[in-house]
């Protein structure tokens, strides 16, 4: 289990990392937590000619609430998110962070790295898609900011340009009366989801004023299930409207048939997870504190 040879560069700052990336070209990869990249390199499924290690840059592991947004630094680990006081008020972030793989992976893996990887079965993308998330990118020639939906372009493909690095994620704080939930089905603890559902709802009295739904692991990219969200909006979230929305969510994806299950089985998982996620999100929107856990085989 040894990777192919590569050169190693330790970045002193993100700017330095961007400059080195620009200099070394597309054969270079950034190393942050390494929880996806290192196993892929050991299996020789990925063989970058150079690694630019950003893991030693100080001050990038922040999760801060600032001006109505959460700023998630490039080196904030899943564990940092799970333990973040700032993020406690957005339970969907905690659902996701605390349910990733095992404690070793959570202690090393980073939120930003997970988005950069754009693995179709990754946990973070659906969650951050139902929140308003901007990706801050940094390059030699300056910065830019992109919406997350446009950032993820395809399986393992993002809008990052050559020489560009992700600096932080900026997640708009949710309002009072808004609640979310993220649930996945996983065959055992340390593996990627077979299917996952993220839901964020805003209630006005008993009525769902706004809904956002995103599905993970059921297509080449996370699926924003607009029709499903529409089915929830304006309803009082009774069993019937939730069932209709669940159906719309299942219809909005074409899950691949693979070792994790058949297309129809995964659609059934989506319906199940969706129903529970909506119920939990609604309770949280009403101010209840609800603990949830992923579904495991």
């Amino acid at each position, binding site marked *: *289990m*040894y990777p*192919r*040879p590569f050169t190693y560069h330790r970045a002193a700052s993100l700017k330095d990392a961007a400059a080195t990336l620009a200099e070394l070209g597309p054969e270079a990869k950034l190393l942050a937590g390494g929880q996806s990249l290192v196993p892929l390199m050991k*299996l*020789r499924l990925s063989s970058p000619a150079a690694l630019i290690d950003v893991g030693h840059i100080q001050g990038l592991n922040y999760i801060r609430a600032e001006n109505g947004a959460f700023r998630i630094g490039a080196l904030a680990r899943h564990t940092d998110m799970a333990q973040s006081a700032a993020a406690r008020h957005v339970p969907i972030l905690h659902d996701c962070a605390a349910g990733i793989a*095992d404690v070793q992976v959570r202690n090393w893996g980073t939120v930003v790295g997970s988005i950069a990887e754009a693995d179709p079965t990754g946990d973070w993308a659906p969650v951050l898609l139902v929140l308003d998330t901007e990706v801050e990118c940094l390059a030699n020639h300056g910065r830019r900011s992109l919406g997350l939906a446009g950032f993820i372009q395809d399986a393992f493909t993002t809008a990052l340009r050559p020489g560009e690095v992700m600096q932080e994620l900026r997640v708009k704080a949710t309002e009072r009366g808004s609640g979310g939930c993220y649930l996945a*089905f996983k*065959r*055992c*603890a*340390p*593996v*990627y989801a077979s299917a996952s559902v993220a839901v964020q709802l805003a209630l006005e009295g008993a009525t769902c004023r706004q809904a956002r739904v995103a599905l993970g692991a059921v297509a080449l990219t996370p699926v924003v299930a607009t029709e499903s969200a529409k089915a929830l909006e304006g309803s009082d979230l009774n069993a019937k409207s939730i069932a209709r929305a669940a159906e719309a969510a299942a219809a909005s994806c074409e899950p691949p048939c693979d*070792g*994790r*299950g*058949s297309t*129809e*089985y995964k659609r*059934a*998982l989506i*319906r*199940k997870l969706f129903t529970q996620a909506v119920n939990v999100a609604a309770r949280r929107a009403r101010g209840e504190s609800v603990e949830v856990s992923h*579904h*495991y*085989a």
Partner: protein
Amino acid sequence: MADRSSTAPRREPELLPHQEPAVEKPARAPRNGWVGRPIERKEEQRHVRGRGKFIDDFKLPGMVHMCLVRSPYAHARITRVDVSEAEQHPGVICTLTGAEIAKLTTPYIEIGPDPSARIQDYCMAVDLARYQGEPVAAVIAISRGAAEDAAELVQVEYEPLTPVMSAEQALTDADVIHPAAGTNKVWQGTFEYGDVEQAFRDAATIVHIDRMHFHRFSSTPLENNAIIGHWDQRDENIRFWCNNSFPTIGIQLVAPALGVHIDRIRVETHDIGGSFGIKITNYPYMTLCALASRKAGGKPVKWTETRTEHMLASAHGNERTFLDTRVALDRDGVIIGIDSRHLDDCGAYPRYEPLGCVIWTQVFAGVYRFRNARINFSQAVTNKCPVGPNRGYSRMQQLWFLERCVDLCAHELGIAADEMRRRNYIRPEQFPYTTPNGCIYDSGNYPGMLKLAQERLGWEHWKKEQEKGRAEGRLIGLGIGTTLDSGTNNFGQSRIVNPHAPFSGNSQAANVKLDMYGEIVVSVGSVPQGQGHETTASQVVCDVLSVTPDMVTVRAGFDTERNVHTGHTGTYASQFAVSGLSAVHGAAQKLRKELLRLAAYALNAPEDQLELGIGKQGAEVRVRGTDRAINYWGLANIINVNNAGLPDELQDVTLNCRYTWRAPFKIPDLERKYGNLTLTYSSQLHIAVVEVDTDTGNPKILDYCAIDDCGVMINPRIVEGQVHGATAHGIGAALIENCAYDDSGNMVASTFSEYTPITSVNIPNVKYGNMETPSPHSYSGAKGMGEGGAAPVHAISAALQDALYPQGIYITESFNNGDSIFSMLAARRQGRSTAGVRTERRAK
């Protein structure tokens, strides 16, 4: 080949006289000492602190590394292997190819008879690759990294052939995997006892089950295979540091393949991170390391397997298909006859097989009383990873088969699951019980275990919950799995698969001595992989010598040169508690006798007035009721370093006592396939409560109970740990873990991300309980219990059956996950039948 002593089907076997004299009973040890106490394991400190010594931790002077190039094809002709570029790579010392292997070695001895004996199994593919992951070339380099880089430069050309992916396909012989054998059939035999035809004529009901299938899985030890081989050019001796768990078999295969005398091979094992039987078959890699070392100029060569290599090419458990099963029952639902055809898939090379073709007959009858049965058993090679003796080896498949039969019949006849079992269990008063094939079950109380399990679980509570749930449309099932763990096997059963097999009986050796300063040192050549042999051996010695475990040093681990062993030594098949500890007990008793004789001389007192104990100066022998004593240092001193003037009658005292324990076995009757195959029979009774999600098909364990009876427990903590471990393995096998192949022969679960071995989030709280029916066949009353009979697989299959029977679904696969249950539910909703089970009721 019917059992000649029977002429009619018998429903009341307890009326039968024992057909074989009962096993000679050893004297029972007293029960107030260290044996039976849940003491902390001696091994715990080093393992919890990461101070174990595993093979990959060893770094020898001049050591180099081997990396293997493996076939991506399940079945292909190798037309060209070009290592020239790899050999030019910096750091590469040499390479090995199949062509060289064919010149340097002879094929391994096959255990099976002709024609499968003609199978040519080398440590590397020579002209045909027969499973995905089979080694086709080796690169030896100064570092593992360099070896892996160079391995990518080896060019191999293949001509793909039709992969043979099931035993059914293999037995057609349309594509023959081993041309030298001329057939894919490895072994075939009929096991028939009683009068099967009469039983079916007498039956009130006959249940037909078209097909059942027990899937492939592996117990995935945490530590992969690892070997260092050193062919020393100074003396031409070969030394292995390895984690093979049955080294005496390993070297009996490696030595002839290499063409060297076995005494030139030294094998050492150290700490091992689990084997579960899988590491018994790592001997081809031992051979490769030895050859690599010789070609590398006598440098030690290390090979450490990666997880992907382990999943692809170490060993999987046996896969078995049960066809055309018929079960005859009387009007009370008592099984009176079974007739079935079993096909075993052993993968690309038989290796330890076809021993599995007879080992299942240790539990031919399971826990049931039927006397008439005919099972036609065949084994075939396929283009999959070779199988190895995985935890529950070859018996769990048979136990699952019988449990499915009993369970399906109960549902078909409308008899409650627990009642069905009570009607069919061997009864407590029948022990020792001789099975239709001559095995002697030493002890057990299956109805008692069922009662205990039902109480511990809260059976009545769950039956009510099930009823309530059904009214709400929920699918809840309760399932019982009753199993046996047969331990200390009679190697004579190998003669049933091959009359010329040179094995029989069973034996283990131990040595207990006083070292020069009176230290008590126990040597057992066993190969523990987490079973706590150092602890249990010390408990046994403490009781004999009246000392405490901290005073006893136990040297476990195999070492051909430096530790005791017999030809059966290894750690496998649930036997150390009986075979290993009987040897330790025998050696400790010899030492005790010597200590008493010596002390009698030293203290000038008659032996019968002496006692062993702990005094102010440590362990000692004293004159009872006085303070006249000599401690172990004093006794050791007299014999070891201060022995001038020792009287003649003490000249034979060495304080260094070896004892070889032999199991009291006979060679079975080969024609009738009849005889005692195993010394002890632990039993397990598990109950699972499982709910199936009606929308997704996902099964969820709501409650779980595991009762174990291994007779007298040497160390209840270790027993409980083994039960939990075996339960986790079984739940994983039943619901999550499957060594699945696609039609092209690709192993689709070659990483842990895909194989998904069970983790803590998948395991319910297990309600554990213990029952004790002491074995009359071991001195301590203990029975081997490491494997556990895969009870969770049976219990979960039964629970799923109970949940899904009202839906018209039959559970005929051992592996059921949400995906497969979802498709069964979907098929039923569309009105399609999912499996062929039918019940024929006859006017009686």
